[in-house]
């Protein structure tokens, strides 16, 4: 059983006990524990169930590579599934539950035993579940979905907050072990601005556990001293609990800082996402120990040797009373010594390497009286939910049992693999090291920046320098190289000298024993979480899934939440073996960010809820809100759809607004309409290219309605252009179009007509604009007093600057309703006051505000098109009968050439018409007119469609606009529109102008 030792635990604060709950049970730990160490201290080895077979799973690692220890944590708005116990710092009141089992962790009915699992090898689901056809959706898949998944889905809204930070540095060092610390210090000594980030709460990485000396002093002293030095340097930023999550193009790095995960009651954001632009990056990300592949290596109690050592040294936890060590290298001997010194039993060190020259570690083992079995391996681990013993065999054989050893834990080591993820994210290549049997960064093939130079350097164990002395030398050189790469001159310093005992070479062992029989291979796990065994990878190879990507996808190896940190190298070595191909030729799968999963909350950052996409507000927004506005999102604005009064439906309100505007006086907040100032000696020439109309001939003081097309000839925006003076135009755009059209103008000016003397400024928000519409429009303005707004002084399609009711105003005589209409712009800060003045003065004339739907009906009654309704990105002005707005005199405009293409001039193009239902009802939105028969693909032929449709209170009937084949030639004809409601609507083709065809009302 695993338990807390009386002594040891360098990271614990023993006078600060902490209570926490696991599956409802109250347990105790100490400050400084991880959830993993605290669970183990309470003999909770079993922590979860595997993904596919629901096998019992125990903790196997002590860090970010842990595949099994995943739990649900927290409650309600702080609930989160799949929290890794090895990277969760314990805090008082922590509450966790285990995942993926029913009804309980100890007894899971979903467990697939060894007999059943025979029927479920890799990819079995591609070969089965095909009949009967409907069963996949209704029977097989629901069952599989329920069995799969890990943690529970969160339900409540997240109560935590998140933030983004931006940082710039010359050198970013990722990893705060000895290599990272030294590299950071060396780089910083050059004067470079250095940032050092470390994913755990502690500095020094593995070194304090693994031991050794630096310049004669214990390595812990070196760590402490270097951290202090770095902390005192002004050009250095240190962040612990901050993981390097991903490396992107141009030296862009994501750092994931967990601010309050260890103290959930603390104020402030939970996570902070650092977006770092680094001149050069050093990855000092260490190395991860590999498991060994032997039968039963997934039984709880089998753990990485380094993790066993960590739990003893860092947290004073023993994994078992009797621990068998199984290894192919010297490093795992340190675990045996640590256990022995802690007073625990180590019945044997099973060393796969044949006896050879005695290394210092082997000599020490002998001196401590430890039994070393050279050339041996584990044939099979005994036990079910906990190790009870191991069967020993010859490594060279097929697994005949020579001896059984009773034990309750197994510490395994298959060698180490440098953490190359961050190096690889942005294209860094790897080289295979035969002697140490691992992939390491290929120095000559670093990720390259815009200048073709590498921008990442690996340091220490992450570059393959596993031994302390090598790591320090490597890190020192990396620090100097990074400083140089970032443009600094490295100070001439010497690398400190690290010393550890010499080690005998490791021996690659990919299968234990090497000739293991099929039944043993079917129990030798590679991927603990996803239940991928040696036999599965061999099956993939047999079936032709020879590419490492195929094998991964077919078996799901490395696709679990640990992304194969423990399994990938063992898996591809197994694949290489099955294919009889050298490992480097098989290659690796692609390393993708993030290094370990990062919260979506952090990715989203502050921009959530109210500030997700901040709402743009006109100066009159609040007034609308308190006066019944039924809001409609339009672009980033909100516009009142209608102003609904008590006891009125939205539809009633719209009808009232239309009638009132036609008969009395309506006020529309038109501030959202885009207003672009186009200025310069070439402004007229520029607008002649942008609009289909001729704008350069427009006289100052006049307005002109204009159309804008894309290069492909399609109508993209419309609006009224006013010429302010010889060099200045003010272009109105649609509400949704302002930013887009501004960008469109800039693109042409910057990329094609960069020598034209034109500036464009978006002044949309500088003005509040009110449309004063209706027969009483002039009356209310005259009552307010000021400038002359008579027909003679300010004719239709003219504008003037002046004063109205004491407000400085620019008044445009334009109409989108067919009524007498003034659009009046005042300074944005005067908007509300001006609106109030209009409402007050207009009271006696029946003034009412109106919303967007009323605006739409007013314009549709007049047959005016609306961008986005009559257009959809495929419509040219000629389709809409707007030929009058296309200048024949101009040599060119954007879209002119496109509009001459054969399909654009095709007489079969649908054309704009008005539509009146025969029975007066309203046509459904988006309905199509059906023609005769079907096309070659069996689809019903269509001859037209509805583009806008409304009930017109003015006419007391449904009116619509639509595009119809040969429409203008078919006036009076009745065509039918099948609705999705099952009804068919009959409508007559009519002129699109329903109201005041002569345009008399707007021109009074």
């Amino acid at each position, binding site marked *: 059983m695993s338990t807390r030792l009386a002594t040891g635990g360098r990271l614990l604060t023993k006078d600060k006990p902490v209570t926490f709950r696991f599956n409802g049970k109250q347990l105790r730990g100490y400050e400084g524990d991880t959830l993993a160490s605290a669970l183990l201290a309470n003999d909770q080895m079993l922590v979860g169930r595997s993904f596919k077979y629901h096998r019992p799973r125990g903790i196997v690692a002590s860090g970010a590579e842990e595949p099994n220890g995943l739990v649900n944590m927290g409650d309600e708005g702080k609930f989160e599934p799949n929290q890794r116990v090895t990277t969760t710092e314990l805090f008082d009141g922590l509450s966790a539950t285990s995942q993926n089992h029913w009804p309980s962790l100890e007894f899971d009915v979903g467990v697939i035993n060894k007999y059943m699992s025979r029927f479920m090898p890799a990819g079995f689901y591609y070969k089965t579940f095909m009949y009967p056809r409907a069963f996949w959706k209704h029977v097989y898949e629901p069952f599989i979905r329920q069995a799969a998944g890990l943690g529970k889905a969160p339900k409540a809204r997240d109560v935590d907050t998140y933030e983004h930070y931006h940082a710039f540095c010359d050198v970013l060092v990722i990893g705060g072990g000895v290599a990272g610390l030294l590299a950071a210090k060396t780089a910083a000594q050059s004067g470079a601005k250095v940032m050092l980030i470390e994913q755990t709460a502690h500095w020094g990485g593995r070194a304090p556990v693994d031991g050794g000396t630096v310049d004669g002093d214990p390595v812990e002293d070196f760590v402490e001293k270097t951290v202090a030095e770095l902390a005192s340097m002004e050009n250095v930023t240190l962040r612990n609990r901050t993981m390097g999550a991903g490396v992107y193009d141009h030296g862009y790095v994501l750092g994931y800082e967990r601010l309050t995960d260890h103290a959930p009651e603390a104020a402030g954001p939970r996570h902070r996402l650092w977006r770092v632009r680094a001149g050069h990056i050093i990855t000092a990300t260490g190395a991860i120990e590999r498991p060994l592949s032997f039968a039963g290596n997934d039984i709880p109690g089998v753990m990485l040797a380094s993790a066993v050592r960590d739990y003893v040294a860092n947290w004073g936890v023993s994994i078992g009373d009797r621990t068998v060590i199984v290894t192919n290298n010297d490093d795992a001997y340190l675990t045996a010594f640590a256990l022995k010194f802690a007073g625990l039993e180590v019945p044997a060190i099973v060393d796969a390497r044949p006896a050879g020259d005695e290394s210092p570690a082997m000599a020490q083992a002998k001196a401590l009286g430890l039994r070393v079995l050279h050339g041996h391996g584990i044939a099979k681990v005994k036990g079910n939910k906990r190790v009870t013993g191991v069967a020993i065999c010859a490594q060279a054989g097929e697994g005949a049992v020579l001896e059984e050893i009773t034990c309750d834990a197994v510490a395994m080591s298959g060698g180490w693999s440098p953490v190359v993820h961050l190096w690889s994210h942005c294209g860094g290549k790897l080289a295979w090291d035969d002697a140490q049997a691992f992939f390491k960064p290929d120095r000559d093939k670093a990720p390259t920046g815009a200048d073709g130079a590498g921008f990442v350097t690996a340091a220490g164990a992450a570059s393959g320098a596993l031994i302390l002395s090598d790591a320090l030398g490597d890190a020192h050189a990396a620090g100097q190289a990074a400083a140089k790469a970032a443009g600094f001159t490295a100070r001439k310093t010497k690398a400190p000298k690290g010393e550890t005992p010499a080690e005998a070479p490791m021996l690659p062992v990919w299968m234990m024993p090497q000739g293991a029989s099929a039944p043993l291979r079917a129990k030798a796990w590679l991927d603990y979480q996803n239940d991928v065994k040696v036999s599965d990878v061999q099956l993939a190879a047999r079936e032709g899934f020879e590419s490492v990507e195929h094998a991964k996808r077919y078996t799901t190896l490395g696709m679990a939440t640990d992304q194969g940190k423990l399994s990938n190298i063992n898996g591809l070595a197994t694949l290489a073996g099955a294919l009889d191909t050298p490992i480097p030729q098989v290659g690796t799968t692609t390393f993708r960010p993030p290094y370990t999963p990062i919260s979506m909350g952090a990715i989203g950052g502050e921009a959530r809820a109210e500030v997700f996409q901040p709402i743009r507000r006109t100066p009159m927004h609040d007034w609308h809100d308190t006066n019944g506005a039924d809001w409609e999102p339009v672009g980033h604005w909100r516009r009142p759809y209608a102003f609904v009064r008590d006891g009125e439906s939205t539809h009633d309100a719209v009808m009232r607004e239309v009638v009132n505007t036609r008969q009395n006086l309506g006020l529309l907040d038109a501030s959202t309409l885009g207003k672009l100032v186009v200025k310069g000696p070439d402004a007229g020439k520029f607008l002649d290219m942008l609009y289909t109309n001729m704008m350069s001939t427009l006289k100052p003081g006049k307005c002109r309605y204009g159309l804008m097309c894309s290069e492909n000839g399609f109508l993209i925006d419309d609006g009224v252009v006013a010429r302010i003076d010889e060099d200045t135009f003010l272009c109105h755009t649609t509400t949704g179009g302002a930013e887009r059209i501004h960008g469109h103008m800039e693109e042409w000016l910057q990329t094609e007509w960069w020598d034209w003397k034109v500036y464009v400024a978006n002044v949309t928000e500088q003005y509040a604009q009110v449309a004063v519409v209706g027969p009483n429009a002039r009356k209310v303005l005259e009552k307010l007093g000021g400038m002359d707004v008579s027909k003679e002084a300010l004719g239709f399609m003219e504008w003037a600057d002046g004063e109205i009711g004491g407000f400085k105003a620019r008044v445009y005589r334009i109409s989108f309703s067919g009524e007498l209409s003034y659009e009046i712009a005042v300074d944005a800060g005067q908007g509300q006051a001006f609106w109030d003045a209009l409402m007050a003065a207009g009271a006696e004339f029946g003034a009412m505000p109106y919303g967007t739907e009323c605006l739409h009906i007013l314009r549709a009654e007049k047959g005016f098109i609306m961008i986005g309704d009559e257009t959809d990105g495929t419509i040219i002005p000629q389709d809409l009968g707007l030929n009058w707005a296309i200048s024949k005199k101009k040599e060119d405009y954007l879209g002119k050439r496109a509009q001459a293409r054969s399909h654009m001039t095709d007489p079969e193009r649908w054309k704009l018409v008005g539509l009146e239902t025969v029975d007066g009802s309203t046509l459904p939105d*988006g309905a199509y007119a059906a023609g005769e028969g079907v096309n070659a693909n069996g689809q019903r032929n269509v001859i037209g469609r509805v583009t806008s449709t409304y009930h017109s209170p003015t006419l007391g009937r449904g009116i619509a606009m639509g595009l119809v084949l040969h429409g203008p030639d078919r006036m009076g004809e009745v065509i039918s529109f099948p609705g999705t409601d099952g009804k068919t609507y009959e409508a007559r083709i009519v002129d699109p102008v329903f109201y005041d065809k002569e345009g008399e009302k707007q021109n009074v």
Partner: protein
Amino acid sequence: MKRYSAFAVAREAARFHTGWERAWRNPAPKSRYDVIIIGAGGHGLATAYYLGKNFGIKNVAIIEKGWLGGGNTGRNTTIIRSNYLQDPSAALYEKSRSLFETMSQDLNYNVMFSPRGVIMLAQTQHEVRGYQRTAHANALQGVKTEFINPQRVKELVPIINLDGPRYPVLGGLWQARGGSARHDAVAWGYARACSDMGMDVIQQCEVTAVRRDGGKVVGVSTTKGDIDCDKLGIVVAGNSGHVAGMAGFRLPIESVALQALVSEPIKPCMDVVVMANTVHGYMSQSDKGEMVIGGGTDGYNNYTQRGSFHHIEETVRALVETFPMVSRLKMLRQWGGIVDITGDRSPILSKTPVENVFINCGWGTGGFKATPGSGWAMAELMAKGHGPLTDAFGMERFREGRFIDESVAAGVAH
């Protein structure tokens, strides 16, 4: 070919699965084929499969520079739907969707087609009208869709937030027989079936030149030698411009990175596929339990199969607003693929200026769902020179202005 079945799995279990044969052969190229398809992705393999199945053309090689299914086939978010607006698109995608219905049985390979339903959310009045239009069009095209109200959306997607502060859900376009399938299995199933028909799937073989004689194709040069053919199909999404260049013609496409990401797996919480175009994000839950999330394309052309992180941020923000629970999940993995974008965002299935060279490209961000239909239509085009499903998709349409613009239905601003 030994058939796959539960019985076969049981039989093999007895001997620890040592008796399974290769899913597809690994042949050396012959000197000549009737048809060569460049690109062993889903579309290329499907083209070959239907050439054999529908037209009896079986002397076919499918040449792949990497591993089969390794391009966008293996990188997409596996959404299948056919609720397109324009007639030619609806015909092609609905053909494709209907082929997915029986694909597992046709190929004797479980591609896990799951018609779990697809909702496209309407979050502005503009989108409401747009999707009502699509629903009307679909009804006449024989595509079953319906516009549903917010309450129905909530019933189908309990984790959705209907009244977010920014964009309330006003309804949605619902296609009940849309859904998803296992993307790799589609490629593997077709490869196995092609191989079984005697076709050669040749991996790790890069085409280096398209050999022509007087405006007519005669074969290709590859890293495994020259291979002759009568007809050549180029089906290489993400590299289309490059390979077309070898054949001596240019394409009206741009290549950009499209990104996707998955969360860690969780227990089932969302059965249907949801697309939210106003905020640019879509999400489904895989059978493994991961939330599969698709985002937007980068604004610049490149071939790196990576992308800019700010797009991931935008996508995640959009989804946190739409599904607040997402905030408390973690991103497991992000990746990118290179998509061909045409001027009208519709594909090209076309003859080319080189006689007997045909091209299939330009699927933009939505090619996976078209895999079987694309193969079916492309096979007909290559066998007969034309066909009703491909007639509208010729590349000459860009010269004529005869666009098939789907951005209306996709809710893209215009």
